[in-house]
């Protein structure tokens, strides 16, 4: 059930009516409703693996209580370690079993040892990477004494399965969402209208930008017949597609959350304007980056603090290899993570890693040339990383890169249906402009400065007409695969 589908509109309208009219101000009933709706939503995507989600919820609910009872003791540490190992084992089984089998097989065969292993037919549960991380942070934080476990099973189960975030995040921490689930929720007009605006903006990003870019970036197996310039253009457009797809989805998620009275974790902060790689990861998929920073990078960095910058570099590289691997079981993702980790090294050595970058603007409010150059360099570096991200194999990524940097890089890119592309460029320019102007706000359609309702409504209707007339063929959200 895609957020931009008519099925979702019917589902959500029903839920909204029940939530605010029938179960008005009854927190417990509202939570039960949200839980049922979340399980229904999940079952629509993958009903066979719903029991796994429920079982994981029950296990971690019990673990949370047990850890809290003995917090500070060895037993609590053992239990939380058990929770982490169990979570990683389940995630590992579903996502990485076949990867390890085939990798070891290749390794042994390269050493001349014959193996007779075969891979399994394993269906990866949708959203497992997202809800596993929620569960892990829950037990780790309880064992660290950061907060008390949820006594209310319904609230906890709703936190784990909360339908707007279950498929592709954001990965809300327990202390962000559980307290909101436990307190009384009354309808907030300003929050709800802002939520609707954010949904509309997310739909524009997804349906107009991402779905249209998809038609231009889907080079597939035919890439060796394309010129280097065409591939380069596709590579750069894929970065835009990825951003519009994932941040558009997240805008819709957060908007849906706001309509139900929740403030979910912000996941993007205009990453296309990042001035270096550290800045980029502070603005891109924030909930994942901050999760791994807290639970992987920080402990490693503390452990290796005596090694100075090299210890930090190693911690960062390990963290990014994990970020890469989190996306999927393939060497391309591992190398994608390693590539990003290595991009940090010059920053660490120059002491610029934790420096907050300030956007310097010129007379007209646009970035200064030096700032723009840094943004473009970061954009190019990220775009090249995404070649690994979407390649089927390392060989393909390497050949793809080789094809880009061939003599055909200087050929005119093969662009069919020029009119479509010009219109597309216009909408990309609008996206960048709106993002730029609203870079310090929560989302592109936050209209604090516009007082006139007529202007606001004109903007809404214009966006709807643009989505209707120029929306692309409805593609699946890229991050659903993770």
């Amino acid at each position: 059930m895609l957020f931009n589908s008519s099925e979702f509109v019917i589902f959500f309208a029903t839920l909204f009516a029940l939530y605010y009219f029938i179960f008005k101000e009854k927190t417990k009933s509202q939570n039960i409703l949200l839980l049922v709706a979340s399980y229904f939503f999940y079952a629509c995507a993958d009903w066979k693996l719903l029991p796994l989600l429920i079982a994981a919820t029950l296990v971690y609910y019990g673990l949370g209580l047990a850890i809290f009872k003995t917090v500070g003791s060895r037993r609590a540490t053992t239990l939380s370690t058990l929770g982490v190992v169990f979570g990683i084992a389940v995630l590992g089984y579903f996502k990485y079993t076949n990867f390890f089998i085939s990798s070891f097989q290749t390794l042994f065969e390269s050493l001349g040892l014959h193996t007779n292993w075969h891979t399994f037919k394993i269906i990866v549960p949708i959203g497992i990477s997202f809800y596993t991380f929620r569960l892990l942070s829950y037990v780790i934080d309880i064992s660290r004494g950061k907060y008390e476990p949820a006594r209310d099973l319904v609230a906890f189960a709703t936190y784990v399965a909360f339908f707007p975030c279950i498929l592709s995040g954001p990965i809300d921490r327990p202390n962000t969402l559980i307290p909101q689930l436990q307190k009384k929720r009354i309808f907030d007009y300003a929050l709800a209208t802002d939520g609707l605006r954010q949904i509309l903006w997310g739909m524009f990003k997804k349906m107009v930008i991402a779905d249209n870019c998809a038609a231009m970036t889907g080079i597939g197996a035919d890439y060796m017949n394309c010129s280097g310039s065409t591939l380069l253009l596709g590579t750069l457009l894929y970065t835009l597609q990825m951003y519009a797809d994932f941040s558009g989805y997240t805008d819709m998620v957060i908007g849906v959350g706001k309509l139900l009275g929740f403030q979910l974790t912000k996941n993007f902060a205009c990453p296309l304007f990042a001035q270096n790689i550290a800045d980029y990861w502070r603005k891109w998929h924030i909930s994942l980056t901050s999760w791994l920073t807290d639970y992987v990078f920080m402990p490693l960095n503390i452990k290796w603090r005596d090694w100075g910058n090299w210890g930090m570099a190693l911690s960062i590289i390990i963290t990014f290899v994990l970020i890469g691997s989190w996306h999927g079981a393939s060497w391309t993702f591992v190398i994608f993570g390693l590539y990003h980790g290595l991009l940090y090294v010059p920053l660490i050595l120059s002491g610029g890693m934790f420096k907050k970058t300030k956007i310097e603007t010129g007379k007209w409010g646009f970035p200064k040339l030096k700032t723009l150059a840094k943004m473009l360099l970061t954009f190019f570096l990220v775009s090249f990383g995404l070649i690994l991200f979407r390649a089927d194999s390392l060989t393909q990524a390497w050949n793809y890169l080789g094809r880009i940097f061939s003599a055909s890089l200087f050929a005119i890119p093969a662009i069919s249906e020029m009119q479509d592309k010009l219109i597309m460029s216009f909408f990309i320019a609008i996206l960048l402009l709106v993002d730029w102007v609203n870079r310090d706000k929560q989302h592109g359609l936050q209209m604090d400065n516009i007082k006139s309702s007529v202007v606001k409504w004109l903007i809404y209707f214009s966006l709807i007409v643009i989505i209707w007339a120029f929306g692309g063929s409805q593609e699946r959200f890229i991050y659903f695969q993770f």
Partner: protein
Amino acid sequence: MKIFMMKVLFFATLLLAGAFAIDFMLEKGLKKTGTGEFSTWNAIFSSNINADAIILGSSRALVQIDPEILDTTLHVNAYNLGMDGYPFSMQYVRYKIFEKYNKKPKLIIQNVDFMTLFRGTPINKVQFAPYMHEDVLKKELEAMGISETERHVPASSYYSEYATIVKGVSEFFNLKHFPSERYKGYFGQDKTWDGVDFQKRLAQDSIVAEKNPEIVNLFDSFLKECEASGVQMVLVFSPQYIKMTEFTKNRDTEMQLYRSFAEKYNIQFLDYSDDPLCYDTTYFYNAMHLNKKGAELFSLKLAKDIEIQQ
């Protein structure tokens, strides 16, 4: 909450009213246009086709059989109802609508190929948008998997179709008229051979022509219907690039099926799958379609063969 709901309802009402208005405007506008598939649909619905011979089929009928040549040779008034990208089930729908609004033809030239009897997914769906009131069309689109929303929500079938929207609006306000690029439904292609598409197909091991039993039955009943109503039927397998034919694994079985239909209803089956034209890429623009030069040669050959048999 009350204010919010009122505003949402008001917004939704305005949106719905706008959708109805746009839908109306586009329907009226596109019914006047001559562009693309609309030209043939509009000719059918306006009862303007006074043809005694019609050509049915997919794009291979649309771009390969020139009615002007048939007119001259056979002394008939022919019209090409070929539909790009659609198998027989939709070709039949077009024929049924044609029959409803126009006089019955004396001769039907039915182009067949390896994709005639399968059920595909709809392409260029917007061509149907102004005519969704036709039950037979709605039913077939439903069978092809078109969504409920597209069938029932006003203006939703124009989603993503900005070029068509612009044309519809321009026609509605009489700002610009888009004339037809076709002659009596025929859409000759002045192009030269482009091997890219063929190379892509060759990347596969082979092609297996698929059939849908429902569509095979429909084809059978169509032939029976024509026999009963005294309409002369000619089945034609028009030329395609020979390597493409050879690449189709089950070609003999498929051909046999058409032969058995011809035998069963005692109708002509003109098979050009091994015609000399099929061996020369000069006459094609891709492996499945003749270019204008090839189409003209083929149309003449076809007309003469039909004349001989008559």
